[in-house]
């Protein structure tokens, strides 16, 4: 026996498992031998014969398996050997019989079945994929014990600003043992680790003593922190993440006591974390190192686990009662996952609605296909009814058949969902990192099973009801066969419905696309194309004083300035759209202080910075070199900030104080897209101060005549040659800005994909109904041609029939979408209702697609041969 033959007989043995065990034991070996003989014969006849044999055998064994079980069920019930004639049907056996009938009927119409299952699969798959994204981002609690009761507490500063609570607030929360079962603090950051090859930036989590027990984390090797290690600034001890331990330490068990060079200092490794440690707030970024967080450190995030039975609202009320209503000292309490959900909730909600529409379209399409099939086999049904099949039995058979379809569609859907999430994860922008953990788990599978069943109810109900209504005599009349009359009207209604839903999705997608395009075209107010930003982090351990760092960056900027083709070099603590914020209550000179805190975007810059990024001044001047050198109390404001502080009066020369410091406004600069181009991000207050504090991480802004790779590599090597342990990335200003629309682009792309699938499905629906109508009316068309109708007339007649339905669908869709867009604009990124242009574009796309779908049926109708058509009946 050669290899392929062995493989075949293995396959056959596998299929034999479908048969009941006693039968298999009695006949299995002989069947295998018979099959082998048949296979040898087929092999001589060629590949096609072999394939046909296998397909035949697979179907036959499947059916036999069911049939034998039905038989043994009957035997068990009656203690008799059943025969086909005069057999009393038990409910279970009847159901199995229906299943067999359904499988047989579906396998006889494999193309129909595959198509319907695929259609359904797309609907179920898209919905499942979106659900798994929604679940991963929004619904899933943090993955540790008690994570579903974990909450995060924030200090509110007015203006919707939330920052980590103060030390007193943390103590207060710790003392509220009636509300909170456990309380812990943490913070995150990055450190530079050397001595492991190239210097690397690693993600570090600072955790208080109780964080490990809060999260139920037990090191796989070593221990957690001792109380004395959390005193003062915290001891230099570190726990490695499991992944880091495996990748950098080869998973050695004797790493304890070895040292890791963190920010230039030796830290003792005291243990290794288990592989599945997540961040306390369930953010998806992995943790590399876990180090102690002492109570003395500022900016600690506060996390707590509610006592069972305590709701977020109750805890919030109690805290408000304790702290008073004062907006600036209040504590806000949110689910621990609120940071992860962030701005993703609304886009996900919109996409979820979109996939629900898609699923609905898929159901309508399958429903339509089933109606078509019912019409096509009306005679078969009538014959069965005439032979004594009861109406309920007929309906049940139809339902079982469609249930089989739903189950297969669901299975296809899971595959589609899996492929879809893989694809989406590959395309996902960095901002949507929360989606990286999307996977298909039991809950998601259950969801897709449920929606498959829901879809089954939706798409099978109408055909089943219609099937039951069918009157026996009427079915044999030609109306039922030709698809005119009631059934056709219903099917046309369904097609119109599909068109309306597709139109809704198309307009939604077009609106998002136009919005993204307009946002991308918005004038950012500065010149992102003209500069590149060098993001430089000097090693903390080598440059510890402000003077050291300033000297180092002065050397760096001087070196860059000496490069040929360089025009301007400037230094700043940030770069648009990645500036940090400064906040506090503003007190303008000669006026009452503001009540609410203002959040300023911007920070320290040198005298060349505004020129380098191309941000124009509207009034006053930029900083002077000596102001930057001496750290003068001056400020350059953006337009909105100046307007807000001085109520629209001329700001230059005026003074205001912020958190106790006094500043004089020397210039007002144009507002720029300082946090990006997304619609909600316009007109943020901007303030720049002279660059007095130079941090380890700074941005060097370079404008130059050249932009090629060689030039960019030259910039990197200047930094490296001066400081080998520095981290450096060079990015074009336009690239940084473009990335701020990543979320909008991604949402628009997904919605467009859904709209395209919807369009395809409704085109198929249109094509199917129209083809059937044309086939059914061949006789009539033949008669018209024989009576002298022009072929162009015939074509127009068919196109007209479909066109009316499409037009009705468009009108319904327009009404639907007007309401829908109102919701859309209220829910995400300030989307505006985009006038008739978007509607027109969507209508054109839909119209052209519909015309393409109707073309072939129309041509077929026009080609009808009157002689043939009229003799066929």
């Amino acid at each position, binding site marked *: 026996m050669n290899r392929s033959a062995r493989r075949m007989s293995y396959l056959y043995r596998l299929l034999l498992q479908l*048969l009941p065990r006693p*039968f298999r034991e*009695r*006949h299995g*070996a*002989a*069947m*295998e*031998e*018979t*099959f082998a*003989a*048949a296979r040898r014969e087929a092999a001589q006849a060629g590949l096609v014969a072999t394939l046909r044999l296998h397909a*035949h*055998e697979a*179907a*036959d*064994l499947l*059916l*036999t*398996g069911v*049939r*034998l079980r039905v038989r043994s069920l009957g035997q068990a019930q009656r203690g008799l*050997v059943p*025969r*086909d*004639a*005069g057999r009393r049907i038990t409910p279970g056996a009847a159901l199995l019989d229906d299943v067999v009938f359904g499988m047989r009927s579906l396998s006889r119409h494999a193309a129909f079945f595959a198509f319907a299952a695929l259609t359904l699969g797309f609907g179920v798959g898209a919905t499942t994929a979106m659900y798994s994204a929604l679940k991963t981002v929004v619904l899933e609690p943090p993955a540790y014990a008690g994570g579903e009761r974990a909450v995060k507490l924030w200090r509110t500063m007015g203006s919707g600003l939330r920052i980590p609570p103060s030390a007193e607030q943390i103590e207060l929360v710790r003392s509220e043992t009636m509300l909170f079962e456990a309380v812990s603090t943490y913070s995150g950051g990055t450190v530079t680790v050397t001595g492991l090859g190239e210097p690397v930036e690693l993600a570090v989590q600072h955790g208080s003593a109780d964080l490990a027990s809060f999260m139920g984390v037990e090191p796989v090797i070593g221990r957690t922190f001792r109380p004395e290690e959390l005193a003062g600034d915290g001891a230099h001890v570190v726990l490695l993440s499991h992944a880091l331990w495996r990748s950098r330490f080869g998973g050695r068990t004797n790493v304890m006591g070895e040292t890791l060079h963190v920010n230039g200092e030796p830290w003792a490794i005291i243990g290794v974390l288990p592989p599945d440690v997540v961040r306390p707030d369930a953010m998806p970024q992995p943790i590399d190192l876990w180090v102690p967080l002492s109570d003395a450190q500022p900016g600690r995030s506060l996390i707590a686990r509610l006592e069972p039975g305590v709701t977020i609202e109750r805890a919030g009320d109690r805290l408000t009662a304790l702290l008073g209503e004062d907006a600036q000292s209040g504590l806000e309490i949110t689910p621990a996952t609120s940071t992860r959900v962030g701005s993703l909730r609304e886009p996900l909600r919109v996409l979820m609605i979109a996939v629900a529409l898609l699923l609905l379209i898929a159901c309508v399409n399958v429903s339509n296909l089933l109606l078509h099939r019912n019409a096509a086999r009306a005679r078969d049904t009538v014959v069965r009814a005439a032979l004594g099949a009861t109406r309920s039995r007929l309906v049940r058979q139809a339902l079982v058949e469609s249930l089989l379809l739903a189950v297969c569609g669901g299975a296809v859907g899971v595959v589609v969902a899996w492929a879809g999430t893989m694809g989406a994860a590959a395309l996902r922008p960095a901002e949507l990192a929360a989606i990286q953990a999307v996977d298909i788990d039991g809950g998601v599978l259950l969801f897709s099973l449920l929606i498959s069943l829901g879809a089954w109810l939706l798409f099978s109900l109408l055909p089943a009801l219609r099937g039951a209504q069918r009157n026996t005599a009427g079915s044999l009349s030609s109306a039922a066969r030709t698809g005119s009359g009631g059934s056709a009207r219903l099917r046309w209604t369904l097609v119109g419905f599909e068109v309306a839903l597709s139109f809704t999705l198309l307009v939604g997608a077009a609106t998002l696309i136009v919005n993204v395009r307009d946002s991308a075209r918005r004038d950012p107010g500065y010149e992102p194309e003209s500069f590149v930003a060098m993001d430089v982090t000097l090693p903390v351990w080598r440059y510890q004083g402000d003077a050291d760092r300033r000297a180092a960056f002065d050397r760096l900027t001087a070196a860059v300035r000496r490069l040929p083709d360089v025009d301007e070099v400037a230094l700043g603590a940030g770069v648009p759209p990645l500036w940090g914020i400064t906040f506090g209550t503003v007190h303008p000179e000669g006026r009452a202080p503001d009540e609410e805190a203002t959040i300023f975007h911007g920070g320290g810059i040198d005298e060349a910075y505004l020129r380098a990024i191309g941000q124009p001044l509207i009034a006053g001047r930029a900083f002077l070199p000596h102001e930057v050198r001496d750290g003068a109390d001056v400020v350059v404001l953006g337009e909105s900030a100046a307007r807000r502080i001085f109520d629209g009066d001329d700001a230059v020369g005026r003074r205001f104080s912020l958190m106790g410091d006094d500043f004089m406004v020397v210039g007002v600069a144009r507002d720029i897209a300082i946090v990006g181009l997304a619609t909600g991000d316009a007109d943020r207050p901007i303030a720049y101060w002279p660059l007095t504090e130079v941090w380890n991480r700074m941005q060097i802004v370079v404008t130059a005549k050249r932009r090629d790779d060689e030039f960019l590599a030259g910039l990197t090597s200047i930094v490296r040659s001066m400081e080998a342990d520095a981290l450096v990335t060079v990015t074009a200003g336009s690239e940084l800005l473009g990335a701020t629309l990543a979320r909008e682009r991604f949402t628009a792309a997904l919605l467009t994909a859904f709209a395209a699938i919807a369009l395809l499905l409704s085109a198929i629906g249109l094509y199917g109904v129209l083809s059937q109508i044309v086939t059914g009316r061949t006789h009539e068309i033949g008669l018209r041609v024989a009576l002298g109708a022009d072929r162009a007339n015939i074509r127009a007649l068919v196109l007209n029939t479909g066109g009316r339905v499409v037009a009705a669908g468009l009108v319904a869709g327009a009404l639907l979408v007007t309401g829908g867009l109102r919701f859309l604009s209220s829910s995400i990124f300030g989307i505006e209702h985009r006038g008739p242009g978007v509607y027109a574009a969507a209508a054109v796309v839909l119209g052209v697609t519909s015309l393409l779908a109707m073309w072939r049926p129309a041509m077929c109708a026009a080609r009808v041969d009157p002689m043939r058509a009229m003799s066929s009946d």
Partner: protein
Amino acid sequence: MNNTEPLTPLSMAILLALMDGPQHGYALMREIEAQTGRRPGTGTLYAALDRLEEEDHIAECEVETAEDARRRYFRITPGGVAAARAESARMLGVLDQARAGSVFTSFSALRELS
């Protein structure tokens, strides 16, 4: 012996094929194909053999020339012969009725109509 219930066409074909002597599964398969124009799958065939065996219409038997140890031969039993006879008689009866009801002439009449 139960000869009141009609046999299925497949059972009848198997019994007829075994009239000439013991056969193994694959030979039966080909014989049935020759008789009816359709070849049953192994599952259908053995399910039918199983039932015929249960009803005592056929029985397994040893054949000395067997090439393969797994190959099983079946022979017809007296009960099977009787059942095949009863079925043949029933079919002849049906045929007589059909002739009496001028089925054949009606068919030709239909053909003329269309």
